[in-house]
C-alpha cells in the first residue's frame, strides 16, 4: 500500500507519481519565442553594463540579449557559450538574483530585472535543440593534458583545451560526468536529464576522452598524471562532508544532504525514493535549501531548515529562502543541534538557541525539540583526496589568479581550489581561465 504524508518514519511513495512529476517540473518555465522577444526588449543595452561585470564568466549580456531581439538567438547562444561553455546549465542554476540580475539597472530602479537567466536559457536551449555545436578545434598541438574531475570546472577546462588543439583526457572518479551538475543541485533546476545532455553536447568538440571510475585513491597519482601528460588540471571538487559532532549523529535517519540529493538526482523513479515525515535540515546554504525543498516535494509533512546564525548570514540567497518558504519549508534561525534523540533511529532533534558574540556563535542554554525522523546535514563540504605535496590554504588547493598550484605543471579550479564562490559559473570561469593559461604556458 502506498505510503502517505502522515506515515511516520522514512518511506517512499508519500505522493502519487503524478504529484511527484508535477512537483519536480521545471522551476522556471522556458520562454517561448514571443516571450523571449518581449523580455529582451526590456534590456536597456547599458553602456559598460553592470550585469556583464557581475557575471563570473563575463558573458556579454547586452550583446546576447540584443541578438535575441534581432531574431537570431543562435548568435546569442554563441556569445554566451564563447564565455561559458556550460551557459545552458548556468542559465538554470546560477543565483542570478545575486549576480547579473541583482545589478541590472531595472532591478535597482524597479525591483524587476531583465530576466537574464531565462533569456540565456532560451538562447542556449535553442542551439542545443538544433544539436549545433558552434565551436571547432584548432590544428592539433600534439600536447596531451590531464583533467582530474569531470565537473563544471573540469569540463570547461577540457573544452577550452580541446578547442585550442590539445588532446584531453578527463579522469572521473564516478561513473558519470557532470559533477554537481549531475549529482548535486535541485532536480527542478535541471529537468529532462539536462546535465547529461549538456555533457554530450559539450563533447561534440572532439579531442576529449573521459575515463570513468578513476581518481586520486582510485588508481591515479599526481606523479603518474604528470609523467603521462604535458599539463594537469585538478577539478576534484569537495568530496568530503563536515560532521555535526553532535550527540546522536550516528543514529539511523541522520545522513548527509549531498548524498540524499545525489540519490534523488540519480533515481529513475522518485516515488521509490524514501523521505521522512518530519525532516530537519541542518545548515544554511544552497545544499540545505535543495535538500529541504526536495524533501517537501517528495511529500514530507514537516520540513525545517535549522540554521545557527540569522537570516542575513545565510548562504542561500533570499530568492532561495523564499522558494523554500513557498514550498512550505519552515526556516528557523539562530538554532544549532544539541542532540539527536531516538531509540536507534532518530525521532527528535534537540536544538539550542544561539547568539553571536564577537562573531562567534554560542548557545544560550535555551533548547527546543522538533520531531525528526530524518536529519540532513548540510553544513559544508571539504576537500578530500587532494594529492600529497600540493599547497592547501583555507581547506582548498592554493591557486594563483590563473589557477596555477604550488606544483609546476599543475593547475586547479572549481570548488577544490581557493578563490571565488562555490558556484557552477565560478567553476566554469576558473576552468576556462586555467585552460587559457595552460595553453599559453605550453605554446608560449
Amino acid at each position, binding site marked *: 500500500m502506498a505510503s502517505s504524508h502522515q506515515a511516520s518514519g522514512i518511506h517512499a511513495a508519500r505522493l502519487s507519481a503524478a504529484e511527484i512529476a508535477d512537483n519536480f517540473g521545471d522551476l522556471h518555465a522556458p520562454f517561448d519565442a514571443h516571450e523571449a522577444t*518581449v523580455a529582451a526588449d526590456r534590456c536597456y543595452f547599458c*553602456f*559598460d553594463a553592470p550585469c556583464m561585470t557581475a557575471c563570473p564568466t563575463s558573458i556579454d549580456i547586452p550583446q546576447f540579449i540584443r541578438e535575441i531581439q534581432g531574431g537570431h538567438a543562435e548568435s546569442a547562444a554563441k556569445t554566451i557559450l564563447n564565455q561559458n561553455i556550460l551557459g545552458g546549465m548556468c542559465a538554470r542554476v546560477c543565483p542570478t538574483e545575486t549576480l547579473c540580475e541583482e545589478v541590472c539597472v531595472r532591478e535597482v530602479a524597479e525591483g524587476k530585472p531583465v530576466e537574464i537567466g531565462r533569456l540565456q536559457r532560451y538562447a542556449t536551449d535553442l542551439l542545443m535543440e538544433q544539436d549545433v555545436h558552434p565551436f571547432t578545434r584548432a590544428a592539433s598541438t600534439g600536447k596531451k593534458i590531464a583533467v582530474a574531475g569531470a565537473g563544471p570546472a573540469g569540463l570547461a577546462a577540457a573544452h577550452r583545451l580541446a578547442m585550442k588543439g590539445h588532446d584531453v583526457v578527463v579522469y572521473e572518479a564516478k561513473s558519470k560526468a557532470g559533477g554537481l551538475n549531475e549529482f548535486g543541485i535541485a532536480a527542478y533546476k535541471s529537468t529532462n536529464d539536462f546535465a547529461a545532455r549538456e555533457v554530450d553536447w559539450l563533447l561534440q568538440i572532439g579531442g576529449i576522452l573521459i575515463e570513468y571510475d578513476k581518481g586520486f585513491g582510485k588508481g591515479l597519482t599526481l606523479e603518474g598524471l604528470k609523467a603521462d601528460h604535458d599539463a594537469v588540471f585538478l577539478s576534484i571538487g569537495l568530496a568530503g562532508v563536515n560532521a555535526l559532532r553532535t550527540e546522536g549523529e550516528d543514529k539511523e535517519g541522520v545522513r548527509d544532504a549531498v548524498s540524499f540529493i545525489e540519490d534523488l538526482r540519480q533515481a529513475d523513479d522518485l516515488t521509490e525514493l524514501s523521505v521522512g515525515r518530519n525532516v530537519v535540515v541542518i545548515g544554511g546554504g544552497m545544499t540545505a535549501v535543495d535538500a529541504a525543498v526536495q524533501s517537501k516535494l517528495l511529500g514530507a509533512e514537516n520540513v525545517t531548515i535549522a540554521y545557527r546564525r540569522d537570516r542575513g548570514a545565510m548562504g542561500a540567497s533570499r530568492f532561495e529562502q523564499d522558494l523554500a518558504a513557498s514550498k512550505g519549508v519552515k526556516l528557523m534561525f539562530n538554532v544549532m543541534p544539541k542532540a539527536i534523540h531516538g531509540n536507534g533511529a532518530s525521532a527528535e532533534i534537540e536544538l539550542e538557541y544561539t547568539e553571536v558574540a564577537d562573531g562567534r556563535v554560542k548557545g544560550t542554554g535555551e533548547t527546543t525539540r522538533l520531531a525528526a525522523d530524518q536529519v540532513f546535514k548540510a553544513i559544508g563540504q571539504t576537500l578530500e583526496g587532494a594529492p600529497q605535496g600540493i599547497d592547501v590554504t583555507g581547506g582548498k588547493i592554493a591557486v594563483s589568479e590563473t589557477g596555477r598550484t604550488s606544483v609546476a605543471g599543475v593547475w586547479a579550479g572549481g570548488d577544490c581550489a581557493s578563490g571565488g564562490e562555490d558556484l557552477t559559473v565560478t567553476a566554469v570561469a576558473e576552468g576556462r581561465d586555467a585552460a587559457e593559461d595552460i595553453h599559453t604556458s605550453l605554446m608560449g
Partner: protein
Amino acid sequence: MADLTTDFLGIKSPNPFWLASAPPTDKEYNVRRAFEAGWGGVVWKTLGAEGPPVVNVNGPRYGAIWGADRRLLGLNNIELITDRPLQVNLDEMTRVKKDYPDRALIASIMVPCEEAAWKAILPRVAETGCDGIELNFGCPHGMAERGMGSAVGQVPEYIQMVTEWCKQYYGKPVIVKLTPNIADIRHPARAAHAGNADAVSLINTINSITSVNLDAMSPEPMIGGKGTHGGYCGPAVKPIAMNMVAEIARDPQTAGLPISAIGGVTTWRDAAEFIALGAGNVQVCTAAMTYGFKVVEEMISGLSNWMDEKGYTSIEDFRGMAVPNVTDWQYLDLNYVTKARISQDDCIKCGRCFAACEDTSHQAIAMSEDRTFTVKDDECVACNLCVNVCPVENCITMEEIAVGAVDERTGQVVSGEYGNWTAHPNNPAATAAE
C-alpha cells in the same frame, strides 16, 4: 464636462472623432456599429463611378510593423476603393443617415478626372442626404495607376479643376483629401483653396514597403511572390501628418482653411495635438482597425478630462493655439541657451546618455568609476539626444541658462535678447543686407 460638439463646415457632430474613409466604413453594418460605439462621424469608404466595381487582390492586403510585444506601430494597405456596386452603397448611406441624423456622414468619392464623371455621381450622392463629400485625391496604390487618387493629388491644377466641378455640381461642403506623397503639401492645399474647397483633409497614406520577405525576396504583403507599395498609416505617420497640417495652417495663402486631420490618431492626445495645430476635427482609421470601434471611448474621455483640467469648454477654445508657435528654423532664438541636467535621484545608471553623447554627439557627459553621469556644461550643446535616449522619463531635462549667466561652452553671457539667424553675423545673407 467639456463640450466636445464640433461644427465643421456647418456639419455638426457630437465629438471631433470621425472614422476616415477606409475599410472600417465600407458598409452599413460597420458604420452602424461605429455610431453605436460613439463615433462622431464617418467618411464612407470611397465610392467609384457607376459600372463594374473595382476588384481587390485575393491575397493579403495589409502589411505592418510592430514593437516587441506586437504593438502595431504602422500599417500599410493595398486595398482599393469600395468594391461594391455604387447603388448599394448609396442606399445604405441613405438609411444610415436617416437613422443617425446627429452624426456626420461624408461621402468619399473617386471617379475619373473628367467633368462628366463627377457631374454624373454628385447628384446621386446628394440624394443620400449625406452632409458633405470628400474628394479622394490621396490613395497612392492601384487607383493612382489609373489616373485617380494620388495621381490627381500630385497635380495642383487637377485638384483645383475637380474641386471647381464639385462646387459647381454639389451644394454641400466639399472636402479635398490630400496625398502626402508630394514635395510640398502647401501647393495642393492652395490648389484646393483656389478651387473653393470648403476644407482639406490630410494626410492620406504614404507610399511604403513595410517589409521584405528574405526567403522569397519579395516585398510584403506578398501576392503570389510579388508585392507592391502600399499606403502607410498608423502611429508611425503621425509626426509627418502633424507637420503637413501645421504647414497648411500657417501658410498665409491657406490660413483659415478648415482642416480635418488624419494620420495616426490613436489616443485623445493625438487628437488634441492636431486640433492645437488648427484641425477642426480628426479622422481615425488604424486605431479602430487595430482595437475595434471601442477605442473612441478613451479618446472622448481623455480629451474631455484634459479640456476640463485646462478650463477649455469647447474645441474652439484651443483650436489652432499652437499654430503661431510653428515657425521656420531661421526665426528660432539663437540666444536661448539650455543645458542638460541629470537628476541623480532618478538616474538608474544605464549609461545610455553617455554612450549616445560620447559616440554620436558632443562628448558632453562624464562617467565616473561608480557610474555617476554628469553633464559637462562646457561641451553640452543642448541637443536633447540624452533626454530622448534616457529610459527614465524626466530624469534628464533641459535647463534654461539664466540671463546674465555665462554659457560655459561658448564663454558668452546669455543676453536674453532675441536673436535669430536672419541677423546673425555668420549669415552671409544678413551681411549682404547691410
